[in-house]
């Protein structure tokens, strides 16, 4: 399984920024996001033998990462709601970012974890519905319905 391990390491190294952002969207805190990602990398490397096909390395790793993130949010609910306000500080500002954009981002963050996960993976991480189903251990129709529900809730939040 040496090859699979190398592929995994390569995948992690080339995508570390992306993976960090996923973890960050759950923890909303730099240190915790680093912890979540570190935990996930350790788990993945330890359990590499469970990866059946190297083609699935991405969805497989996302599954671990999302599991770790959700576990973290469960444990730290109260802390996280406070830190939502910190988001602005952890952003590299540029002229294109407007205050209303941040508001929308915050609305996405405030969705429940299941809905938020599909929106992040589908739009920000540009994953296919089938890939999301694998990464979240559900099926295509569940992902579709969560996506639909997530978007309509988001619309409501924005219009209010």
């Amino acid at each position, binding site marked *: 399984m040496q090859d699979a391990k190398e592929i995994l390491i390569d995948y992690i190294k080339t995508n*570390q920024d992306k993976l960090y*952002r996923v973890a960050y969207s759950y923890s909303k805190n730099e240190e915790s996001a680093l912890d979540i990602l570190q935990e996930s990398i*350790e788990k993945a*490397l330890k359990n590499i033998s469970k990866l059946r096909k190297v083609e699935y390395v991405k969805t497989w790793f996302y599954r671990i990462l999302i599991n770790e993130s959700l576990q973290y949010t469960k444990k730290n609910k109260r802390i996280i709601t406070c830190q939502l306000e910190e988001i602005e500080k*952890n952003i*590299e500002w540029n002229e294109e*970012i407007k205050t209303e954009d941040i508001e*929308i*981002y915050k609305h996405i963050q405030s969705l429940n974890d299941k809905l938020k996960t599909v929106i992040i993976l589908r739009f920000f991480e540009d994953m296919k519905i089938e890939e999301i189903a694998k990464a979240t251990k559900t099926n295509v129709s569940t992902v579709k319905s969560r996506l639909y529900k997530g978007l309509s809730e988001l619309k409501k939040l*924005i219009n209010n």
Partner: protein
Amino acid sequence: MKSIEKAQKVYDAVKIPTKLNYMVEKTILESQKERKTIYKPNYIKFVASAIACSFIFFVFMININPTFAASIAEIPILKDVAKIFTIKEFKEEDNTKLINAKIPALENTGNTDLEKRVNYEIMLKINEVLEEAEQRAEEYKKALIETGGKEEDYHPINIQIDYKGGYSSEKTVSFMIMKSETLASAYTEMYFYNIDIETGKNLNLRDVLGSDYKEIVDEAIYEEIEERSKNPENIYFKKGEGGFEGIENEYQKFYINSEGKVVIVFEKYEIAPGYMGIQEFIIN
């Protein structure tokens, strides 16, 4: 969906901490090391039994031989203060890298088992660090060539290993090893050794400063940061923005300087912008 695109701009602008790359590299390396450390327990067992053996031998000798007991007291080495000295200095140069290393070792602690163990650990650590650095240099060179770079465009990576002998007495010895690479400044690493000579234990801040260590250290650092910040060129991160908010626990990095004072060390970027470099605080 327009609003999704707007939110994506924010999502993509989330700051990536400088520590990320370091953390990823380290986690991957640590996980690979696990397999190699199979040998370690054996070594510790060996040292432990060696210590036990010499102890028995010692007691035995003192018991049966009064002149031997008297003679130990006169052996000057036992009274000598522990020293840190350079055991090996080497340079290595080829197309990919340029290594300049000074490897420290302990001597005259009066506890030879401890010396052997610590010196062995230092060697292991430095070998590991060098291997990593060499591997990184190879990878970097390969990547450069694969992406169309020419071999002559590649500058050998400069790897420096040095140590700073902090402090030594009959009871404690403290020093640090520093490694830097020119490939990326984020790769400056420091390893700290604060050792109790009698027990061989690694000392933490609680051992050195007592149970109030946190109050003592925090107060001194806050004061010093305020003092240094009077100079507008010195900028520290603010509280809540990655700045200093008190040390986390007794395992905070430190060494003991030649005056016997504790020096707390923060790595680059840890509490201040990169240009401020490594930050040291002397605790009085």
